[in-house]
């Protein structure tokens, strides 16, 4: 079995990469991709802790299933916002979306 600290380190590095993407990219689709990387880092944490659960309960995996559904929902709404932004301001650059009135 993989050591827990290595898994958490992997997850932490992925989280940092996601934060880097959110801070540096301006394309809405790339922002969504960065947020997905952050969500996946969190899901990996849940699954890692479930594998090392002292009580032998798969609750961490249950929460991971729910989080996967939540992340898929989030990206669907995000892409609907991308389409609306593209239709209304003609760009998917968040720097040009000066107001939230879509």
């Amino acid at each position, binding site marked *: *079995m993989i050591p827990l600290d290595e898994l958490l380190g992997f997850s932490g590095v992925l989280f940092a990469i996601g934060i880097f993407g959110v801070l540096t990219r301006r394309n809405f*689709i790339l922002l969504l991709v960065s947020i997905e990387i952050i969500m996946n880092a969190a899901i990996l944490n849940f699954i890692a802790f479930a594998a090392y659960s002292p009580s032998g309960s798969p609750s961490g995996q249950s929460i991971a299933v729910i989080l996967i559904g939540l992340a898929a929902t989030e990206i669907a709404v995000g892409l609907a916002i991308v389409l609306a932004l593209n239709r209304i301001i003609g760009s998917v650059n968040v720097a040009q979306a000066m107001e939230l009135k879509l």
Partner: protein
Amino acid sequence: MNVDALLFALVAGAGIVTALGALMAREVVHTIMWIAVFFITLALTYFLLLAAFLGVLQLAVYAGAVTILLLFAVMVVRKRIFSREAAIGIGAPAVALTFLVAYLMLEMATSVYTSEPGQGYSVADLSRNLFTLNGAWVLALGLVMLSALVGAIYLAHESRGKAIRSEEGA
């Protein structure tokens, strides 16, 4: 070093490289290709953690559905499909903050209490736990998905943009 640790080192290395590749790619289509591989590396990690069901779910939902959804969005925003984004402004504060976050995460990871690893869970165990102890969360997820569906249709409805444009024109 046992086989699991070696495989994990390979998979984690590939995961970090593909995540960075997704964010550093200049074309959006390339980003989506990188992120698809990234999702597959995470699915492999779940398999290594004996969470086979979640690995399959990761492959179906992320590597399959989410990737295709992202590609579809790029295709709809067609004129930018092969366009390059303006030069990425890698600001020093962003890089510094990224390294700080990574450092703190690694510090916490090495100081965590570790118990003995389990033998993995069967799908029956997982579903029993999911629909009894966490049943309320499943219902809440259903409600969130329903409202997201309605919200996405509302946002993407064609007449909405026209109405706003005619308001602005008036």
